[in-house]
């Protein structure tokens, strides 16, 4: 149980590559923090610096208000779950889990008790005598978790622990990890490139790109109020639709025009633009999530009419890939609507859920710094 504080953390590799730039954030005790971003964004490097496996080029890292930049991993009281599990192949499952405790000179009886306790949490009781190679991927993954649990560390670090599992097991383990977090009531720091994992498990999410923190927020805020086009596109599946558009202001009525349609902004949105000093913007990107498009059959020639190119039925919902005057957009609709390929449909944008981004800087125009 611990809080962490990262202050101006930088990582420059010996070959000059800057992996992490000026990362600043605090992690409260018992949080489940997820670091997410595309590959090469520096998320694993941040985690490895927290673990002490990677030197911090500049900046300060505090665990429980103690500066740990020069503290070796073994003295940081952390446990880490690795992507490929990194189980010790020559040791039994019991010894794999007990190794860290043995090194800490814990009495044998206590070791046995805590290993068995962790094994029962994870359902590994019957496998303690086996060797790692006799286990399935999912079981190995749980042993890796167990090895971390028995240590009862201040901080749990996880580096893409689910990426080697098959899809079904991944969904299952996701829920188990969330439960485990509640049960252990410890700080979790979790690295993934999968936004679904981030959204489903994190109490807060740190979105990284090219070594820079983009946004730190809880899943709902991240989804509803992304700071820029990158975050908007990265979070959510299928991803947000982006359409090149222009802003026009006539007598206080601000509307977004794009090929094949237009959206008129609500007064409070105009106020928000005004507050952000963004009203003069001309070239913007309009962003809207698939579920914020209302699709109905088109009766005639109107604005906002699109042609259905592909339909994807997922059972509870259908995704339509629409051609809106040259822009391909995705809409989520009710399967009972029974829309077919080549149908012409009218697309209604839910105005209150429209996002606008600067075409140059990709910054969200409605985003208000809190």
């Amino acid at each position, binding site marked *: 149980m611990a809080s962490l504080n990262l202050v101006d953390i930088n990582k420059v590799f010996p070959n000059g590559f800057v992996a992490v730039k000026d990362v600043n954030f605090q992690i409260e005790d018992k949080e489940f923090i997820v670091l997410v971003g595309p590959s090469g964004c520096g998320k694993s490097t941040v985690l490895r610096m927290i*673990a*002490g*496996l990677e030197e911090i080029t500049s900046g300060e890292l505090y665990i429980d208000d103690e500066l740990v930049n020069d503290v*070796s*991993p*073994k003295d940081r009281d*952390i*446990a*880490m779950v*690795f*992507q*490929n599990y*990194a*189980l*010790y*192949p*020559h040791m039994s499952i019991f010894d794999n889990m007990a*190794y*860290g405790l043995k*090194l*800490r000179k814990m009495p044998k009886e206590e070791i046995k008790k805590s290993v068995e306790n962790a094994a029962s949490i994870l359902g590994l009781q019957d496998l303690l005598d086996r060797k790692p190679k006799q286990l399935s991927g999912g079981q190995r993954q749980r042993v890796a978790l167990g*090895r971390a649990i028995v*240590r009862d560390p201040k901080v749990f*670090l996880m580096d893409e622990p689910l990426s080697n599992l098959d899809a079904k097991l991944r969904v299952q383990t996701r829920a188990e990890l969330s439960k485990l977090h509640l049960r252990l009531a410890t700080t979790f720091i979790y690295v993934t490139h999968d936004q679904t994992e981030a959204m489903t498990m994190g109490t807060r999410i740190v979105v990284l790109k090219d070594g820079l923190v983009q946004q730190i927020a809880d899943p709902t805020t991240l989804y509803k109020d992304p700071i820029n086009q990158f975050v908007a596109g990265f979070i959510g599946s299928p991803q947000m639709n982006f359409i090149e558009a222009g802003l026009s202001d006539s007598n206080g009525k601000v509307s977004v025009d794009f090929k094949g349609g237009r959206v008129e902004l609500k007064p409070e949105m105009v106020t928000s633009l005004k507050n952000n000093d963004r009203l003069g913007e001309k070239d913007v990107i309009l962003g809207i999530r698939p579920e914020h498009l209302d699709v109905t059959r088109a009766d005639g020639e109107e604005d906002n009419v699109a042609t259905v190119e592909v339909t994807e039925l997922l059972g509870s919902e259908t995704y339509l890939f629409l051609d809106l005057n040259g822009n391909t957009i995705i809409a989520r609709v009710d399967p009972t609507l029974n829309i077919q390929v080549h149908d012409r449909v009218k697309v209604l944008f839910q105005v209150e859920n429209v996002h606008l981004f600067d075409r140059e800087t990709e910054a969200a125009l409605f985003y208000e710094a809190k």
Partner: protein
Amino acid sequence: MKKSSGTFGVLKRFGFNFMIIFILVYLLFPFYWAVNSSLKTESQLFMAPATAIPRDPATLEFSPTMQNYSAVLRDGQFLRGLANSSIVATSTTVLALIAGSFAAFALGKLRFRGRRPALYLILAMTMFPQVTVLTGLYAVITALGLSARVSMIFAYMIFTLPFTTWVLTSFFKELPDALMESAQVDGATTFQTFKSILLPLTAPALVTTGLLAFIAAWNEYLFALTFTSIDPTARTVPVAIAYFAGAVARQEPFGEIMAAASLVTVPLVVLVLIFQRRIVTGLPAGAVKG
């Protein structure tokens, strides 16, 4: 292999098998001839034409003799040679493995300045011709007053250590970094990580390189001959055999030499048989990954 048909296929299979037989004969014939000769008496040895098995000169019946073996095994010089060889080869192997695995762990898994130059230096040392260092080394040893056995152990390290280090380094490199990091996070010091996590995993490579180092030290002649010139009691087996003298002046005790040579191979064969399974997993791992 695909089964080929027709004359060409037959030729191909014949050629393949012929090559195998040729290589086998080429490798095994000297050993066979040594064993054959060791079972012959003086008079049987000088029969013309030479016989493929020991035969009685008069009746040409199969009649092997163990007299050479019993003579050799009663020979104090030979037995002392065996003891010396065991001491020297075992010490060399153990020292080379200890120092080699330490070095290989550092070179294969730790990051430090000058790692690459160190590796190339070690590789260069494996190519060093032994003759070039022989006289210099002899001077060093006499100056330091080292005993012959200790000098041999040190001299053998010159070629076994770079070799074991090089092979083990490639083996250590192949072990996933995550294993080491995982042990570190678990609370192990670098030495504990080496000792209880990485070293057990390199066991096959240790066995293979250890065996090769042992064989090299066991067979070595040049340094042994030079260094034991000051102390004949320290002679190793290859030198002891070379110094075998006949009962009469200028007599070459050929049968006894062959018996001794055959006996000397026994420990190596036994060692290889004991570690057979480990070697099979170790050799390709060391070779391909290097």
